[in-house]
Structure formats: C-alpha cells, structure tokens
C-alpha cells in the first residue's frame, strides 16, 4: 500500500529564516510526486511535480527535490505570505494512473 508521511506537522519560522519540509514515501512504482499549497478554508493549489530521483524544481522562494525515498520542500528567506499548509502526494503506477495518496501536511507559519 502506498504511504506518505510528512514532517514536521507544524513549523514556525521567523521571516527570512530558511528551512525544509520533509515528505517520506513508499510506493510500488512512482509515477509522480506532487507538492501543493493550501491556505485556510481553500482548496489545494498545485506547486510542483517531480518524476524521478535527482530532479529539482524551483518557484520563487520554494525548491522541491526528490530522492528514491523522500522529497524535500526547501523554503529560502520566507515571507509571512508563505504561511500555509504544504501537502505532498504520490501517484503510484500499480494503483492506477489517476489516484493520488496524500500526506497529512505541514502547517507552516512565518512570523514577521
């Protein structure tokens, strides 16, 4: 069974203090790993897809990396507007092309 574990559950940083969020996964065959951002009371917003170990993607202050067992979302010099819950999900080959398995998310708070 595909599984995703995100850590920490919650992270509080000062503005400008860089850090990383972790997503550990077990999957029968990785079709893709997805990162989403979710603001309170809203639906998840797509950030990145990673397909193979060693791949990296960047968007503004965010950088996602992938190994065979985990993915990291690095946040550099964060701002208060980066506060949100960040969700990681995997898409496995055996479970079918469509299905995503989500982690429980990391709630990130950036204090000014």
């Amino acid at each position, binding site marked *: 069974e595909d599984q995703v574990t995100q850590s920490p559950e919650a992270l509080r940083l000062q503005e400008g203090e860089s850090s990383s969020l972790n997503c550990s996964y077990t999957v029968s065959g990785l079709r*893709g790993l*997805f990162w*989403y951002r979710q603001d309170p009371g809203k*639906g998840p917003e797509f950030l990145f897809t990673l397909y193979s170990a060693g791949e990296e993607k960047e968007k503004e202050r965010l950088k996602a990396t992938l190994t065979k067992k985990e993915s990291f979302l690095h946040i550099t010099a964060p701002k208060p507007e980066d506060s949100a819950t960040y*969700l990681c999900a995997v*898409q496995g080959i055996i479970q079918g*092309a*469509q299905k995503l398995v*989500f*982690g429980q998310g990391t709630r990130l708070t950036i204090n000014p």
Partner: protein
Amino acid sequence: DVKVTQSSRYLVKRTGEKVFLECVQDMDHENMFWYRQDPGLGLRLIYFSYDVKMKEKGDIPEGYSVSREKKERFSLILESASTNQTSMYLCASSFRGNIQYFGAGTRLSVL
C-alpha cells in the same frame, strides 16, 4: 487557467437529508475526483470518474454515490446524511491522470 467550481462554499443539512454537492470544470478534463478532508486524516479519496458515466470507488465510498452525466460536471450525493459526514469536501479534475486541480471546497455541516 484551469477553473474548478464547487457550487457551495458552506452547507448546513439535517441528519437523514439527501445532499447534492456539485462540481464543474472548464478545461475538458476527462478525470474528476471527490475527496474529503478532515483534521488529522488528510485528504481521502471518495470516488473518481475517468469518463462520462464511468466511476470508480476510492478509499472511503461508503455512504456516498456519484453521478457524471456530462464531461464537465461531477456530482457527489449523500443519500442520507449523517453527522460523521460533516467535513470539507474537495473536488478536483485532471487531464489523463496528471496534475489534479482543486476547487475551493464545500464545508458541510450535518446536524
């Protein structure tokens, strides 16, 4: 931009009522999904559909049914609402199993 629209942001229903949650996407996506999101449990897949009139059960289909009569519209039906179905419901769509785009969510309270 992809737009996934859920018909209601907030709903309050009584136990035993039949509840319809509607979702419309404007990108001609073939796949559509219904999730529920609860604190501590994350997003869990209820049902998905890969074509008109086609559906597959997700991880937690009990107590729910779905309907997809047109490609752009996917409905979630609670046949007889119960208090344990109080949750945030999220609809998503994707093209050929790729990136899923989500709606804003419907927060349902069953009293």
